């Protein structure tokens, strides 16, 4: 039984298509990096706004975070690909299309900015108020306080949580084939149409995802461990 299972798992098949799969992986990584950057920038802005003293700013940013946190990534993906161009075309009175890759980056970037804004907010709130007051009392500007006093401390508190968000985001890139982005899953499906060997192909894709995430998160954790060693993280 195991011999037959081994036969049908057939790692060689996966290996034969390495160039195609690698091309797909590059697309996944590209979309991940771009949407992670978009999500991080938006998350910082929204996270700061969430802790603002301005009620309007707080309200709008809360609404934003709730909207994107509670909408499934897949729905956002489809929306960004099919609906967003329609709206933009109407608004600009000019026919407009959004390619699958930009749509995927927008959808995943906005989706994860909602989650990550919460991480940013929690990190900012974890910095004791007294640290801010001491800086204010010295005449340091709000911007410098955020940049020099609050963020460096908040960042260290956010890191474990942010890392989890990035892992989820990378995993979420596996759905982009649904709007015909040519990522790993897309390539695997295409090969499967020809070979009719779902078992080695999809299992191989799963193991590949898993291996990449384990290696990446272990590396980042090792890099950040010395922060904790210094005793103030």
């Amino acid at each position: 039984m195991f011999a037959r299972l081994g036969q049908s798992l057939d790692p060689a098949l996966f290996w034969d298509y390495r160039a195609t799969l690698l091309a797909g992986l590059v697309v996944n990584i590209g979309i991940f990096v771009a949407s992670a950057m978009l999500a991080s920038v938006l998350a910082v802005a929204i996270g700061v706004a969430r802790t603002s003293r301005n009620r309007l700013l707080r309200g709008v940013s809360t609404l934003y975070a709730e909207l994107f946190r509670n909408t499934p990534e897949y729905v956002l993906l489809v929306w960004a690909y099919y609906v967003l161009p329609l709206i933009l075309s109407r608004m600009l009175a000019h026919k407009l299309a959004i390619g699958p890759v930009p749509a995927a980056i927008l959808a995943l970037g906005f989706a994860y900015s909602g989650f990550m804004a919460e991480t940013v907010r929690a990190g900012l709130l974890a910095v004791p108020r007294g640290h801010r007051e001491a800086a204010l009392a010295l005449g340091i500007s709000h911007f410098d306080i955020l940049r020099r006093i609050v963020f460096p401390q908040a960042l260290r508190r956010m890191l474990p949580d942010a890392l989890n968000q990035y892992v989820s985001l990378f995993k979420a890139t596996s759905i982009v084939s649904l709007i015909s982005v040519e990522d790993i899953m897309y390539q695997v499906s295409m090969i499967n149409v020809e070979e009719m060997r779902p078992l080695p192909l999809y299992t191989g894709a799963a193991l590949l995802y898993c291996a990449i995430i384990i290696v990446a998160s272990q590396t980042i954790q090792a890099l950040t461990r010395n922060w904790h060693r210094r005793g103030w993280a």
Partner: protein
Amino acid sequence: MTDPPATPALSVRNLHKSFGPLEVLRGISLDIAQGAVVTLIGASGSGKSTFLRCLNHLEQPTSGEIYVDGVPITDDIAGLRARLGMVFQQFNLWPHMTVLGNVIEAPLRVKRMPRPEAVALGRRFLAKVNLLDKQDEYPARLSGGQQQRVAIARALAMEPKVMLFDEATSSLDPELTNEVLAVMRDLARDGTTMVVVTHEMAFAREVSDRVVFLHMGQVEEDGPPAQVFGAPVSPRCRQFLSSVRA
């Protein structure tokens, strides 16, 4: 004491502060002469800390005027704060910066001082609080008393007109309290203008030029320590002093 200098270092006129319906400060007016050491005493809730925090607008006063060196404070809150040094009960050192980093941060950011100059200045003030050898340590590795002395050096590094101490020794063990009080005594001897909120009655009696007793957000008794501690006019002040002495 009969002829106060023409321009007080700090003048407060009719300061009021309410938190919602609760009126914490009910019209405080004080002139603090250049070089004077003024201690504020009073029961918890009398408004001492709120008064201090209103002086540098960490709490926004509800009404009233504040003058530093005769200049009224209007919109330039950061400028006001830079001229008033503040030391907190909880030290509030920034844990991700070294001791020297804590001390030079404000001169670098607020005064835009070139780094070598700020470092020289920072080292001078660390020497003043006897902690030059700790300049490269992180705050977490210092004792409470050492942390508070760094906080004092950090406030001094802005070369403020007036130093405000908000219960600077209240979270320290007695033996650590003394090392901080010793630094404060040195500052007083050097002619630093100081407003000190404290529960250390011995310090108030020995070091200050003037003791102000606050009660329910108002100045209830105000005079030289010999008078306030020896023969207070206000019965409430007398009662407070006998309760803290007991």
